[in-house]
């Protein structure tokens, strides 16, 4: 019995992600980490982690996984069809999986990035101070069948299983935008047209999400500009004048003009916008943005307050089995033998 997660098969982009690495911007390396940071905060609340731990990020499609020991997991982010040995598991909830059972995670039903988190965190050796994969920079790699990852100890294996209310950030919508260093390069008319347009999302990746537009968006002069620092959330206009929202794994310096920056609280929705869904932008002041974006520690506190007990039903039969494996044999005459482990 070892604390491991083995990948039996994986979708095209399954990677280890945490909250990223700070302190490397001057070296040309962005923070990176989860494309949907809120999903890791949700997982931390469901698993009782004091801070979010490294988890699997699954872009578009999950895979088949098995564990070397009974393991408490949480499934968050874009809802995907998850089954344990054929039994459906609720998304946005924590579960206790028995050793050796096969967890199968299918395509995203909506949204883009689903997360499989484990209570003790994925314990791969940190690279440059974090476990986040940044495949575009050669830091870590996309996972494939046969990969086995070490896991940390579950600090509270008997903790109750929990769920969070369904999240609603997986179908596009409206994101709030603050002005940035280059907003004034665009005319008032261009900016007004930008905020009045509904944009269809194209296929994105961890670096950015490009949007479609019939009319291009260009700066007043149309001249090339000097490369300047860029950051996640920036909305740059590519050479063709199409907006692209920079995401977690963006570069650190860029030369495309940027009309504004999506506020951090709305970046999870932007990152989770599936191809074909519609995104709109709404300008807000810095003060409004500050108020709308509590620090992540406060967001985690709020999520901890929002978790509910996971009620037992057909879908967590295997969670029950898992609790038996951990707790030893049950006598069978207890009124609710599963309660201690499940609630």
């Amino acid at each position: 019995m070892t604390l491991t997660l083995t990948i039996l098969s994986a979708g095209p982009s399954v990677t280890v992600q945490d909250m990223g690495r700070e302190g490397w911007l001057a070296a040309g390396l962005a923070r990176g980490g989860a494309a949907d940071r809120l999903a890791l905060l949700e997982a931390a609340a469901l698993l009782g982690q004091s801070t979010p731990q490294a988890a699997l990020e699954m872009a578009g499609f999950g895979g088949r996984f098995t564990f070397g020991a009974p393991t408490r997991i949480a499934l968050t982010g874009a809802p995907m069809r998850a089954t344990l040995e054929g039994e459906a598991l609720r998304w946005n909830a924590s579960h206790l999986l028995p050793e050796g059972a096969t967890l199968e995670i299918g395509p995203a039903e909506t949204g883009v990035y689903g997360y499989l988190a484990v209570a003790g965190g994925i314990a791969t050796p940190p690279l440059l101070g974090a476990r986040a994969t940044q495949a575009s920079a050669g830091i870590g790699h996309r996972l494939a069948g046969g990969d086995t990852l070490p896991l940390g100890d579950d600090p509270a294996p008997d903790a109750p299983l929990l769920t969070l209310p369904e999240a609603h950030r997986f179908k596009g919508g409206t994101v709030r935008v603050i002005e940035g260093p280059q907003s004034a390069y665009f005319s008032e008319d261009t900016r007004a047209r930008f905020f009045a347009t509904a944009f269809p999302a194209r296929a994105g990746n961890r670096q950015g999400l490009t949007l479609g537009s019939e009319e291009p968006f260009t700066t007043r002069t149309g001249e090339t500009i000097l490369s300047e620092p860029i950051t996640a959330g920036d909305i740059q206009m590519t050479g063709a004048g199409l907006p692209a929202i920079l995401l977690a794994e963006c570069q650190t310096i860029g030369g495309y003009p940027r009309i504004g920056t999506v506020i951090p609280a709305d970046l999870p929705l932007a990152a989770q916008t599936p191809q074909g869904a519609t995104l709109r932008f709404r300008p807000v002041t810095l003060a409004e943005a500050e108020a709308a974006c509590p620090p992540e520690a406060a967001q985690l506190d709020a999520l901890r307050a929002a978790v509910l007990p996971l009620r037992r039903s057909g879908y967590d039969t295997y969670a029950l089995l898992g609790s038996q494996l951990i707790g030893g044999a049950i006598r069978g005459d207890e009124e609710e033998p599963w309660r201690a482990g499940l609630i």
Partner: protein
Amino acid sequence: MTVTPPQIFPLSLDGVLVRFGQAFTEAANARALALHGALLASPPKGFVESAPALAALHVRFDRTATTRADFEAALRARLDQSADAAPRAPSRIWHIPAAFGGEDGPQLDDVAARAGLSAERLVTQFCETDLSVLALGFAPGLPYLGTLPENWQMPRLTELTREVPRGAITTAIRQIVLFSAPSPTGWRWFGRTAFRPFDLQADQPIALRPGDALRFHAVCDTDLTALEGAPLGGARLEVGA
């Protein structure tokens, strides 16, 4: 050279962009590096990190430790101090062996023709130029080096080169970019080094720092091949007082 007064902008909620110019000048770059140095030497409350670009500095702060208004005030105080400071001589100087032309730099003749020199004279001029790390970006550890003499003013290629190898030395607009991984590029590829600006296995995975001085030393192709396995690809770091 005149420098426009620095402008301060929000860059997302935890960041500030300090702009020293809308075009690259050595003066603007030097001021970005000076403020970067001043912040590292004496970090204001809530400082997280700062990162120089060609003519701007990105500074990040911890929103739970300070406010934007307080942080910007602290930044302005350091701006005033660093504006008066005399430019410091670089304390770190890199010496990097490199080979030029042929398979190590197929576009050498093109670069030489545009710079109005023979290939041989161009390499000599290049290796006699004191370069410095203007910024790291595009990819981890990837340096923008400058500034080359005026005859190196040449545009990017109109068509991308599909792939240059690790260690490729490329040029455009009087600057050099040195690739640590194979990459497509619009810059002209004229040399190669065994030095890797980004190597996860190394003690210091990202070798260069903004502001470092740098000189290339021409070696022949077979010498460069021999350096492939050497520490830092044969590069040598001279650290001053």
